[in-house]
């Protein structure tokens, strides 16, 4: 399946697109088709796919609409990396291709496959519904249409970047935890949840947060930063996830979930010794029973190898801990003051 140019003019190359194919109604397993076409400098992956569909094989299926990086429809994996086909330059990809002259195009990961490069977005939409990714106004219905909601610039800046999300699902495709468990909330939904939760017009803050702190929620993120790195709009998604965690701790306290207890341990230990007390971390996070059930066999092996962290009394404090502790506590006073003035 080749449309080839006779000669390579400058700024024009023959490029092979190795396209993932699978039609569950016909095929027993997925396969790849190679299409070699002439591509000029400046042409995107999406334009190349359109060319293939128009001139070589009309059965190649993919989703696309705006062709300008706005609608988020054409998310796919180009040479293994989730991105938008319409904003990805063929020549840029070629420059980094492992196999010279070949670009591999595959569907997004972590979502069910419908056909070829098309994935089912319904599970993602379902999660957005589950985690109430919208605003339910605090304004009484009687006042609606009569009064304005004024948003300060300072407030808007907190979620300005999060509103850039076009739901392309590149982050969903790259997420490490979602790869391990499809029930995980997923980065795009955490980003939207954050965006709604910091909005002063929203009345569902508590309800949304209560759902987010449950299993498969905000505490299951493993900080791998793959979502943020792959975001086509360069949104700092981890800031939003951290923001939700900060919010959860502030609104619900630190004894709420294993995630918040785990986080609390860092704060407590640093103040106490300047060092993390690792030996008791599993117990402080999950309790004695969980620790015995889950970590005992490994603990035995670690004891044999003299690899166990020292018990708390034997953890040596950082040198000069007294003055460090005083400074740490001084900062605690600053934070208290901040909270007071914030509440005013």
């Amino acid at each position, binding site marked *: 399946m080749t449309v080839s140019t006779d000669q390579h003019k400058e700024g024009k190359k023959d490029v092979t697109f190795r396209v993932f194919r699978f039609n569950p109604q016909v095929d027993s397993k997925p396969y790849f088709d190679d299409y070699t076409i002439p591509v000029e400098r400046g042409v995107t992956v999406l334009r190349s796919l359109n060319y293939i569909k128009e001139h070589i094989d009309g059965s190649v299926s993919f989703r696309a609409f705006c062709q300008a990086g706005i609608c988020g429809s054409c998310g796919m994996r180009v040479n293994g*990396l989730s991105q938008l086909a319409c904003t990805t330059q063929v020549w840029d990809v070629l420059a*980094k291709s492992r196999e010279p002259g070949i670009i591999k195009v595959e569907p997004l990961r972590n979502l069910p496959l419908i056909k070829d490069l098309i994935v089912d977005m319904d599970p993602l939409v379902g999660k957005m519904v589950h985690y109430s990714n919208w605003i339910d106004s605090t304004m009484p219905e009687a006042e609606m249409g009569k009064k304005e909601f004024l948003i300060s610039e300072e407030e808007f800046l907190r979620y300005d970047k999060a509103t850039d999300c076009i739901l392309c699902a590149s982050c969903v495709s790259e997420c*490490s*935890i979602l*790869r*391990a*468990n499809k029930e*995980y909330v997923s980065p795009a939904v955490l980003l939207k949840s954050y965006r709604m939760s910091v909005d002063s017009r929203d009345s569902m803050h508590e309800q949304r947060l209560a759902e987010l702190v449950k299993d*498969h929620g905000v*505490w*299951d993120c*493993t*900080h*791998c*930063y*793959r979502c*943020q*790195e792959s975001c086509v709009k360069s949104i*700092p998604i*981890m800031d939003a996830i*951290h*923001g939700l*965690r*900060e919010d959860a*701790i502030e609104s619900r306290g630190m004894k709420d979930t*294993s*995630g918040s207890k*785990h*986080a*609390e341990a*860092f*704060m407590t*230990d*640093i103040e106490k010794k*300047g*060092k*993390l007390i*690792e030996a008791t*971390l*599993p117990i402080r*996070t*999950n309790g004695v029973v969980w620790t015995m059930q889950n970590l005992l066999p*490994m603990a035995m092996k*670690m004891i044999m*190898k003299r690899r*166990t*962290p020292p018990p708390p009394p034997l*953890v*040596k404090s*950082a*040198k*000069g801990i007294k*003055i*460090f502790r005083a*400074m*740490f506590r*001084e*900062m605690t006073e*600053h*934070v208290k003051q901040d909270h007071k003035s914030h509440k005013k």
Partner: protein
Amino acid sequence: MKRYAYYLSCINESMTKEVDRSIELWQKDLGIELVKLHEGTCCGGSNLEYVSPKHFALVNGRNIALAEKMGLDLIVSCNTCLMTIRTAKKKLDESPELKREINEILKKEGLEYRGTSEVRHLLWVLVDDVGLDTIREKVKVPLKNYRIAPFYGCHILRPSTVLGHDNPVDPTSLDQLIEALGGQTIPYTHKNRCCGFHTLLVAEQESLNVAAEALQEAIESKADFIVTPCPLCHTSLDGYQAKALKNAGVEHSIPVFHISEMIGLALGYSAKELGIKRHIVC
């Protein structure tokens, strides 16, 4: 002899003591001296920054200020400590107000955060300062019969706005080090993936799946061992290996080395001296 301030990571002082032990063995051989910062404190392990952003800035501004006082760069051998301290540095460098606030407190200890010291991973120092040619010259026992899977881990690569040394999609520094030591790197798609460490206590099953995938690829590629620049990745891939692989129904096992041990072996130190016998999988 080039000198650096060396940050003591909590995990290297407790579970992975072999890291600092092996570095001490060979640092002079490679013409570097790492001066331990005993006054340094826990960085907050990628958690403190959302528990209390201001304490996070204070603690890590102080860690860097200690190195600045000595006029040295701060060298870190744990990926997460690296990412965490560099994140704090970026925040402080971008916010004069925050910098002023922490410096007001740091005065009590005679410290000041100025932003003059770089925060760098040991791997970067080896590749960029010591240099691959010097490393090649010093090798006594080339790792020439070994097929090695390079596992970079997340926090030496991402977020690239904070790390910025390697291309997070296709990193090369660890591959270069392996080759300089005479070893053979294998193509390893998990090289820039996650080890699952940070959720081992919170979402254990998910973390074990993440670790198992990385281990499985290395085993199937017939690697002799995995090497990582991060003691947290090491703990997930070595300490939790049996559990992760049992979970995934895989019967094999694979040793996991720290970069400091791999260097030690190539420079002629014994597995015993380097503390390799302390690993769960040997």
